[in-house]
């Protein structure tokens, strides 16, 4: 069954995170008013994106950009009809009508811009159709795109507190790396300011303290950390309060410990119900 909802409640960056971590293959359809967009993923990576007003075969796109002549486009289309199961993008490469790297650069730029524009949507219905694949003539990139990169760039374009505060309610919160952040950063290019913040993350300093130490505004630090958070690089937690100790020496904040024999009795009782 498709996953459905509204990006007002479950944002695009949240969905991209889910697709990435869940290694999802399928299509995310987004719609609001008369606008529609479709993002296709293969094992968690973006392979193409189309918008209702710009849903054309890859050959048309390349002719429009002056990278292919109409004759070459027709030749590729003809060849594509003879090759079952091969994307038109691959046919173009096989026929040496365009180099793989150049095709990747052109399509990636085109697709990225389509996706970044979607980050400005404050609301819109989404529907994720598992397993749905794009039309073979669509502008499918030779190399699928890691979504962390898209999330970071998309978040750079957010200029409102509202969305950020959903995830970072206070600048008194502490930023810490999640496990193996280095592995996750491979697909991400950080800007200079982002590196400044990244380098200050130590699991102890609050967002306010990082802002003070870097000389940046709290908004900018929160926006950058929001990007890290959305890409799954860091976590933000409340600053732990000093924990009062009980007379037994056990911290008050710890849940009461119970005897195994008591838990076993409850388990047996519930099993028998």
């Amino acid at each position, binding site marked *: *069954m*498709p*996953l*459905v*909802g*509204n990006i*007002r*409640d*479950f944002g695009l960056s*949240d969905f991209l*995170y*889910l697709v990435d*971590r*869940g290694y999802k293959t399928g299509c995310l359809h987004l719609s609001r008013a008369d606008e529609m967009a479709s993002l296709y993923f293969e094992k968690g990576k973006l392979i193409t994106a189309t918008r209702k007003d710009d849903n054309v075969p890859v050959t048309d796109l390349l002719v429009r950009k002056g990278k292919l002549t109409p004759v070459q486009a027709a030749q590729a289309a003809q060849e594509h009809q003879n090759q079952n199961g091969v994307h038109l993008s691959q046919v173009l490469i096989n026929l040496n009508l365009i180099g793989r790297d150049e095709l990747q650069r052109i399509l990636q730029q085109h697709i990225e811009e389509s996706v970044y524009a979607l980050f400005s949507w404050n609301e819109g219905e989404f529907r994720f159709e598992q397993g749905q694949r794009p039309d073979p003539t669509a502008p499918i990139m030779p190399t699928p795109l890691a979504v962390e990169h898209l999330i970071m760039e998309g978040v750079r374009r957010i200029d409102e507190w509202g969305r950020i505060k*959903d995830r970072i309610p206070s600048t008194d919160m502490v930023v810490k790396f999640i496990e193996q952040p280095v592995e996750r950063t491979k697909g991400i290019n950080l800007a200079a300011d982002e590196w400044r913040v990244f380098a200050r993350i130590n699991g102890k300093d609050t967002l306010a303290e990082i802002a003070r130490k870097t000389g940046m505004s709290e908004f900018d630090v929160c926006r950058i950390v929001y990007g890290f958070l959305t890409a*799954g690089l860091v976590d933000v937690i*409340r600053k732990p309060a000093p924990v009062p100790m009980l007379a037994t020496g056990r911290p*008050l*904040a*710890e*849940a*009461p*410990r*119970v*005897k*195994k024999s*008591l*838990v*076993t*009795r*409850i*388990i047996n*009782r*519930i*099993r028998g*119900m």
Partner: protein
Amino acid sequence: MQTVKMVISGAVNAGKTEFIRTISEIEVVSTERPATDDTRLIKKETTVAMDFGRIAIGDDLVLHLFGTPGQKRFDFMWEILSEGMLGLVILVDSTRPETFRETNRIIDFFMSYRETPYVVAANKQDRPNAWSPEELRLALRLPSHIKVLPCMATDRESVKNVLLELLDVIMQRSED
């Protein structure tokens, strides 16, 4: 007579009352009233204070089940209810992604108060548009050691399974 307590929490309409009603030995002490605010859009009646259910474990031991009110204005009740609890079930309506942020807020609240054993129950798995437990884990960004369990709060075996999984987590932290 020793009593132990488990808390069932979650956003409005996650299925807390139903969950307790399905497993409790007594008629659930519920305080449902006609919904008067935004909740009215979701359900006609809602829990305004809490639900209370009970399972006798033996002559000398009773398990109490408390359901928290879902509405934000009763947040103060959460702290009271969490005092001395053995464990926590976080119920999620798997069909309503608009409640996922609120679910995270509830988890954050309970975890900031104390390190409590908990499991997440992905309720309403029988509905056609339900997000799977694994999708919920990603949506809620829960670490891999937290159990996310399929659940149908109206089904006794399903509720039993959630409680047994929670007890398994509690067992791992218990003393000899």
